[in-house]
C-alpha cells in the first residue's frame, strides 16, 4: 500500500502537527484515565476500611450464638450508600457466619487463605458467581474470644461505568479537538507560507537573462528573510559568474585576435615578397589555418554577444519571408553549383521582432548546414508558415541527405560538435548550429531536428510571430 504523502508543504506541516497533537492527547488521556482510576480505587479502599471499622463495632452474637449486625445504625441518611455493600463474616474454620442480603447467598470470594487480613486490611478484586466484580477488603477481627474474618466489598460496576463514560467523552473530544487543530494548523501554515509563495513567483521570473532581479525581503531577520537573503546572495554570485563568463569569452576572443592578426600580417607580408615555392606553400598553409581560427574566434565572439543580448531590447520588426528570400538568394549559387535545388514556400504575412542580423546568421547557418549534407540532384525545402494554434511562426528546413542519428539530433547544437559525416574541407568549428540555437532561443523561439522525419534532416524552428 502506498503511504499517503501530501505534496504540498502546508498539508504536510498540518498533518505532522495533527499527528503530534493526537499522540500528545492520547498520552494525556491515558495518564488522566489511569490517574482517575487509581484515585477512585484509593477512595473506595479508604471508604471500605472505614466501613470495616464501623462494621466491627456493629457486629454482635445474639442469644442463640448467631452473628448479627446492628441495623439501626444504617438508618442514618449519610450511610445509605452502605446498603450497596457486600459483607461476609467467617470464622477460622471458614464457616460463613454472616452474609449480607445483597449477596443473595453467593460467596464473597473463595476459601480464606493463610494470613488473609491478619495484620492489615487485605484488598483484592473478587468475581461473584453472577459475574460482577467486587473490590473486597478483608480484615481479621477478634470478638468474644473468637476470631472472625470480615470481608467487605463494593461492586466495581459503578466505577467501571463512570470510567467508561469518561473514556467515551475522551474519544469524542479528541477527534473534535484534532479537527479544530487541523483547520487552525492549515490556516496558520498558509499564512506563514504566503511569503514563500510570493518568493517562488518572483524567483520563477528570474532567469538567466534577468539575473539582476532580486527577491523582496519583508523582514530580513526571520527565517524566510534569511532564506531570501541567501538566495539573493546566490543570485548575485550567479550574475557575477555569468558576467565574468561573458567577459571571459569576449576577452579571450580579443586576446586571440591580437596574435592571430600578427600571424596573418606577417604571413601576408611574407607572401608579397619573393620566396621559394616550398616556403611559400608553408606560409599559405599557415594563413589558411589562421583564417579558420579567425572564423572560430569570430563565432565565439558572436556567441558571447548573443549571450549578452537581452530578448527584450528594442528590435526591429521584419518580415520573416524577406529574410528567407535573402538567405536563399545568397546561397543560390552554391546550391546551383552542387546541383541542389532549393524550394522556398513562404507565407508573406509573418513578421517577427528580433535582431535581424543575428536571426539572419541563425537561419543562414541552418540552411548552409542543410546544403552541406545535401547530395547532388537533391532538394532542400524551406517552408515558412504560421502555426494556427499558437502565435508562433514555423520555419522548416529539410534536406534529402543522410539525416541525423538520434544521438546527433541533440548533439548538433552543442558547441564545437562536428559530426562524422562531413568531409574535412566542409568541416567548420562546430559553432554554427549552436549560434543558431542560442539566437533562436534568445528571441523566445525553439529549434530542433524533427525525429520522425526519416529521409533526411528536418530542422524545425519556432519563433514568436507578431499579430
Amino acid at each position, binding site marked *: 500500500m502506498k503511504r499517503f504523502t501530501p505534496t504540498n508543504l502546508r498539508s504536510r506541516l498540518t498533518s505532522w502537527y495533527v499527528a503530534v497533537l493526537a499522540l500528545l492527547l492520547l498520552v494525556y488521556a491515558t495518564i488522566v484515565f489511569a490517574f482517575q482510576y487509581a484515585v477512585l480505587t484509593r477512595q473506595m479502599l479508604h471508604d471500605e476500611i472505614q466501613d470495616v471499622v464501623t462494621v466491627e463495632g456493629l457486629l454482635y452474637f445474639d442469644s442463640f450464638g448467631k452473628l448479627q449486625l446492628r441495623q439501626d445504625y444504617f438508618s442514618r441518611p449519610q450511610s445509605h450508600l452502605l446498603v450497596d455493600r457486600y459483607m461476609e463474616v467467617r470464622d477460622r474454620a471458614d464457616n460463613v457466619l454472616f452474609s449480607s442480603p445483597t449477596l443473595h447467598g453467593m460467596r464473597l470470594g473463595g476459601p480464606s487463605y493463610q494470613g488473609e487480613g491478619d495484620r492489615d486490611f487485605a484488598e483484592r478484586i473478587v468475581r461473584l458467581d453472577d459475574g460482577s466484580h467486587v473490590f473486597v477488603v478483608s480484615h481479621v477481627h477478634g470478638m468474644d474470644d473468637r476470631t472472625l474474618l470480615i470481608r467487605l466489598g463494593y461492586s466495581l460496576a459503578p466505577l467501571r461505568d463512570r470510567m467508561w463514560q469518561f473514556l467515551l467523552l475522551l474519544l469524542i473530544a479528541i477527534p473534535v479537538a484534532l479537527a479544530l487543530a487541523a483547520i487552525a494548523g492549515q490556516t496558520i501554515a498558509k499564512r506563514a507560507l504566503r511569503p514563500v509563495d510570493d518568493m517562488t513567483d518572483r524567483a520563477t521570473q528570474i532567469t538567466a537573462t534577468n539575473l539582476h532581479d532580486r527577491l523582496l525581503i519583508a523582514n530580513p531577520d526571520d527565517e524566510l528573510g534569511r532564506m531570501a537573503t541567501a538566495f539573493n546572495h546566490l543570485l548575485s554570485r550567479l550574475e557575477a559568474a555569468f558576467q565574468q563568463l561573458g567577459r571571459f569569452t569576449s576577452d579571450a576572443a*580579443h586576446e586571440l*585576435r*591580437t*596574435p*592571430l*592578426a*600578427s*600571424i*596573418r*600580417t*606577417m*604571413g*601576408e*607580408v611574407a*607572401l*608579397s*615578397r619573393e620566396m621559394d615555392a616550398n616556403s611559400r606553400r608553408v*606560409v*599559405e598553409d*599557415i*594563413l*589558411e589555418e*589562421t583564417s579558420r581560427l*579567425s*572564423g572560430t574566434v*569570430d563565432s565565439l565572439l558572436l556567441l558571447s*554577444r548573443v549571450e549578452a543580448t537581452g530578448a527584450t531590447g528594442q528590435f526591429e520588426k521584419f518580415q520573416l519571408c524577406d529574410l528567407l528570400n535573402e538567405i536563399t538568394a*545568397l*546561397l543560390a*549559387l*552554391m546550391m546551383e*553549383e552542387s546541383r541542389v535545388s532549393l524550394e522556398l514556400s513562404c507565407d508573406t504575412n509573418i513578421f517577427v521582432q528580433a535582431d535581424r*542580423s543575428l536571426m539572419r*546568421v541563425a537561419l*543562414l*547557418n541552418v540552411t*548552409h548546414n542543410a546544403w552541406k549534407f545535401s547530395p547532388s540532384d537533391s532538394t532542400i525545402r524551406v517552408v515558412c508558415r504560421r502555426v494556427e494554434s499558437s502565435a508562433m511562426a514555423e520555419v522548416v528546413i529539410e534536406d534529402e541527405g543522410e539525416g541525423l542519428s538520434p544521438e546527433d539530433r541533440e548533439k548538433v547544437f552543442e558547441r564545437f560538435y562536428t559530426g562524422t559525416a562531413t568531409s574535412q574541407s566542409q568541416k*567548420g568549428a562546430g559553432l*554554427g548550429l549552436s549560434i543558431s540555437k542560442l539566437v533562436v532561443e534568445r528571441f523566445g523561439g525553439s529549434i530542433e531536428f524533427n525525429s520522425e522525419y526519416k529521409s533526411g534532416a528536418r530542422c524545425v524552428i519556432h519563433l514568436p510571430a507578431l499579430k
Partner: protein
Amino acid sequence: MKPRILIIEDDRKMSEALVVGLQEAGYDMDTAASGEEGFYLAHKQRPDLLLLDLTLPHRNGLEILKQLRAEGIDMRVLILTSHNTVEDRVEGLRAGADDYLGKPFSFPELLARIDALLRRVLPPTEANTYGIGDLSLDTKARTAARKGEMLDLTPREFDLLLYFVQNRGRIVSREMLARDVWRETSRFTPIDNVIDVQIARLRKKIDDPFPVKLLQTVRGLGFCLREPS
C-alpha cells in the same frame, strides 16, 4: 617624396611586419610602441597617415586621437583594433578617425585602404569605362567584353568583375569581396563558399575561353586581376 606613415602599435611583431610590408609598398615608416611615444612622434614627424591601435598600454588609442584632433593636427588616421563592433567603429570615427579596420585584417586590404586615404588611387566611381588588357567594362550599360566579344554576366558577376577591375593589379581579399561586393558586414563560412563558387563561375566566363588568364588566385591572400607578366 614618399608618404610617411606612423604606426602606433604595442604588438612588436605586428608592427615589424607592417613596417616591412609597407616599406615594400613604397612608404616611409615610423613606429611607436606606446601612446606617449606615438603622440610625440605624431607631433614631431607630422606623418601623412597614422595607423593607430586602440588597445595601447597606459593610454587608450582613442584618447590620443581625440587629443591630436583637438590640437588641430591634420593627418589621415586609420584605426586598427581587435574590438571590432559597430559601436567601437562609430566611436572611433566620431573621435576623428578616417577609416577603421578590425583585426585580424588582410594586408592587401590595409594597403588598399591606405592608398585610398592617401589618394594614390582615383575614387572608383568617376569613370564610366574600365579596362585591363583586352578586357573592358562599361559601367553605364553594365556590360563587359573581352577581345570585343560581349561576355554574358549576371549582375553579381558584373559587380564582382567591376570590383576586380577597379582594384586591378591589387590583391583582393575575401573580406573585401564579402563587404564591398556582397555587402555583408563580416566574412563567414557560407559567404566564403559563395565567393569561391562565384569566382569559379566568373573565371569560366572571362578566362576559360581565352589563352591569357587574368583572374588569379593568390593562395593565402585572395584574388588578383592582372595581366601576367
